[in-house]
């Protein structure tokens, strides 16, 4: 039987030891003597969350298709094990081989949400890799980050050797080939490799840039350093290639995009965890990017252009994944799934194979119309399930500000249709604290809920009702994100967020149908911190280090998040909430992420910010091209 990194008495003393033993069905096993590159791929959160993430599974599949590379998985040890590993000085290990991460060539960390940053430090620390990039030696792994938070990696830039900006399918082969060529040569040095890597498309090397600041704290300049007295350097690669390393890294890092999604690797033999992962189902990615252009939505901007996978490929992948996993459920993954052009054909096919194999279909939130209600009635128990709308704002004025093309009429028509079809539960998602939001816009949220409830009692005769209707409204607090038209917008102190949430609640209690309405809202303090990290700069790294070294981990978990510790760190490190969260950015200010070119141009974002101020709606990509810049990729909806 395979060896484990942790002893029996440790495993028997921690919660869910299966998180740490590996050996799951469909993992890749390779002989170390056959490979050149060991890649540890980490999701910096607990196993059950990390194992549910599709992106990591895609990369795991892609890396392991390379004969010279062995990719293994790493997740954050839960606080119980964290303490034991610190006390007993046990280094962090990868699941497959149970070998220490510090002996790998690469440690890849996916950055899915800002609140995982303290867990990134935990991973580095437990791995015994120097936390600060500048302290690493040639023998430490190359630490590379990817994922949505890399569209402003500055708060964590000092902890990473490389940041991959864009879709993993594009540049990793080139990067790994380059590494192999340089690493095997006797002249290898970390700095030379990083300088060479800076010229691989989509690769950003934070240590090669200098930032200077104005007196008010904003960025004065962000420039690449010059090396070798301005002369290129020729490096003799192990395989005989001359590797030309220019003296200066590129000024701008361009996001890379996979033009044809059908060409990408896909995990059709998914790993099946022993313990229940959050996503205990087949996940089928049907498209990337979104045509809608909601102004608050980062994913809607940074994954442009919208590209669909072909129907035939999706059918094959769905079939194979069901066969190879034995999962009892399948769900579709994408932004705005209703926009996938062959959705009816795909769902017909899924219904057919799933009926035969007794598999449940869990539908993503579809636009509510006759089609989706018909599909839902086929795959769900109408009396138990609910229908979902994401109006994001309560009033039409605010929905125009954020360019959410869902009208009150759409919502009323959709919910009425659903009530006639037997549903009586409706969920509504909103944001509070959007720019230009006024109290009337906030009150419009419960008023909309009330109107939907009133329609239920009008439409459905008493004898046909399945009890009261149940309208559940949830609000999160708006957090401005880089590369969105609202990236310049101010946030508010948590007291103001709570005032707005209470206004929703109080207004709800005044409604005629208040007994049919329910309301939930998110934590306000966490939202402010997330906002600081999302738009922060390199000065934040000291605060993150302070928080981690003072015991802060798993900050994405509200039970572990310690607001006092964060405030203490900000004070000690001179981080002002006023500067990072509450102020509106000047339109000409150099933003920390300006050196990244996502090919959604700043001119377009500025235009959209102006449109937001005026409440002018911009058509979606299929109706009319608005010239965002993503056309340069020459794929997806831009070329149809």
């Amino acid at each position, binding site marked *: 039987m395979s060896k484990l990194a942790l002893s029996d008495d440790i495993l028997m003393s921690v919660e869910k030891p*299966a998180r740490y033993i590996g050996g799951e069905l469909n993992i890749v096993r390779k002989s170390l003597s056959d490979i050149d590159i060991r890649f540890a791929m980490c999701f910096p959160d607990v196993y059950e969350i990390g194992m549910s993430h599709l992106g990591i599974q895609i990369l795991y599949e892609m890396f392991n298709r390379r004969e010279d590379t062995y990719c293994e998985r790493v997740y954050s040890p839960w606080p119980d094990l964290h303490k034991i590993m610190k006390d007993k000085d046990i280094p962090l290990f990868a699941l497959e081989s149970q070998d220490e991460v510090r002996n790998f060539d690469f440690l890849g960390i996916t950055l899915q949400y800002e609140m995982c940053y303290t867990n990134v430090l935990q991973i580095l620390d437990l791995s015994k890799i120097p936390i600060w990039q500048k302290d690493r030696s040639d023998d430490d792994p190359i630490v590379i980050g990817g994922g949505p938070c890399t569209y402003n990696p500055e708060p964590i830039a000092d902890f990473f050797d490389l940041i991959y900006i864009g879709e993993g399918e594009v540049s990793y082969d080139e990067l790994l080939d380059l590494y192999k060529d340089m690493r095997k040569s006797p002249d290898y040095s970390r700095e030379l490799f990083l300088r060479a890597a800076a010229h691989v498309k989509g690769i950003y090397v934070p240590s090669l840039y200098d930032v200077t600041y104005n007196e008010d704290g904003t960025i004065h300049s962000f420039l690449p350093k010059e090396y070798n007295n301005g002369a290129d350097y020729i490096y003799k690669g192990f395989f005989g290639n001359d590797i030309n390393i220019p003296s200066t890294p590129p000024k701008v890092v361009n996001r890379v995009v996979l033009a044809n999604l059908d060409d990408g690797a896909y995990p059709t033999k998914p790993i099946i965890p022993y313990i229940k992962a959050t996503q205990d189902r087949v996940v089928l990615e049907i498209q990337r990017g979104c045509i809608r252009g909601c102004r608050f939505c980062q994913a809607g901007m940074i994954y442009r252009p919208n590209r669909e996978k072909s129907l035939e490929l999706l059918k094959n992948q769905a079939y194979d994944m069901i066969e190879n996993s034995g999962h009892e459920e399948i769900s579709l993954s994408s932004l705005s799934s209703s926009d996938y052009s062959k959705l009816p054909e795909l769902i017909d096919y899924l219904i057919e194979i799933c009926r035969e194999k007794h598999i449940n279909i869990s539908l993503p939130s579809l636009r509510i119309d006759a089609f989706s209600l018909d599909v839902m009635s086929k795959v769900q128990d109408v009396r138990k399930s609910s229908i979902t709308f994401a109006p994001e704002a309560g009033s039409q004025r605010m929905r125009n500000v954020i360019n959410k093309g869902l009208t009150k009429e759409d919502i009323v028509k959709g919910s009425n249709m659903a009530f006639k079809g037997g549903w009586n539960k409706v969920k509504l998602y909103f944001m509070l604290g959007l720019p230009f939001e006024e109290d009337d816009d906030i009150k419009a949220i419960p008023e909309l809920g009330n109107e939907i409830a009133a329609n239920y009692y009008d439409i459905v005769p008493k004898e046909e009702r399945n009890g009261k209707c149940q309208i559940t409204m949830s609000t999160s607090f708006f957090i401005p994100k880089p590369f969105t038209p609202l990236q310049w917008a101010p946030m508010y102190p948590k007291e103001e967020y709570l005032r707005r949430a209470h206004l929703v609640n109080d207004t709800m209690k005044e409604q005629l149908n208040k007994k049919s309405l329910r309301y939930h809202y998110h934590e306000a303090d966490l939202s402010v911190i997330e906002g600081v990290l999302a738009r922060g700069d390199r000065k934040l790294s000291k605060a993150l280090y302070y928080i981690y070294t003072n015991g802060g981990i798993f900050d994405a978990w509200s039970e572990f998040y310690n607001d006092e510790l964060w405030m203490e760190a900000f004070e000690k490190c001179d981080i002002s909430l006023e500067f990072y969260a509450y102020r509106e950015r000047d339109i000409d200010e150099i933003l920390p992420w300006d050196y990244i070119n996502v090919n959604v141009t700043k001119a377009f974002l500025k235009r959209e910010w102006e449109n937001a101020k005026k409440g002018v709606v911009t058509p979606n990509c299929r109706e009319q091209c608005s010239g965002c810049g993503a056309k340069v990729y020459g794929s997806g909806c831009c070329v149809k």
Partner: protein
Amino acid sequence: MKVRVRFEKKGVLKYIGHLDMMRYFQKAISRAELPIAYSEGFNPHQIMSFGNPLGLGMTSSAEYMDIELLEKIPSIEGINRLNEQMVPGIKILSFRYLPDKAKNAMSSTEASSYKIRLSDKLQAELGDLRDISNRIDDFMSLNECIITKKTKKSTRELDILPLIYEFDYRDDYFYIKCSSSSGDNIKPEVIMSEFLRFLGFELKLDRVNLHIERLDIYGLEDGNFISLDSIGIDKN
């Protein structure tokens, strides 16, 4: 038709709990495409039930799962098709068709047998195990050995000696066969702990210092213990 599947669970699989094993087998049966029966409704599930849960930290050569099939497949084929879907550490040992009136594995259970090895650390504390094992007969000859059993609702006193059917020591292992019926389920670590207490050792025994393997589970037939495995028959 009902089939009883026996499998072993070894090595690192001891860290996988009972509910996770059930989900593991649900998926394995789907992958193996066994003709299993499903329940009705919007969320159909496979008709399956498991024998006595194995505690976390124990290994076993006798785990039982009863499944309902829609059509007959040869036993050897059932074993092979499932084994193709197993991870290292789990192995299907038998696939036997049960008589129609057979009770499921859980409610048939009357007794279980275990093989126990003491951790090196524990052995060092106890001294020569042969000396210790020579006292088993003395322990078994006591008038009574009362333990306090706590359930959710009450605590009750129970004499465990009549519930221990076999207690031996051979080649570094203790072997215990004891009651595991729903009314009088005795854990092997409780027996070991009482035995050592009788010898004057007050020790906290758990699954780190006792390595326990379940060897088999038994039902009753004509007053004799019979392996749950022997209740069914192989079919071609």
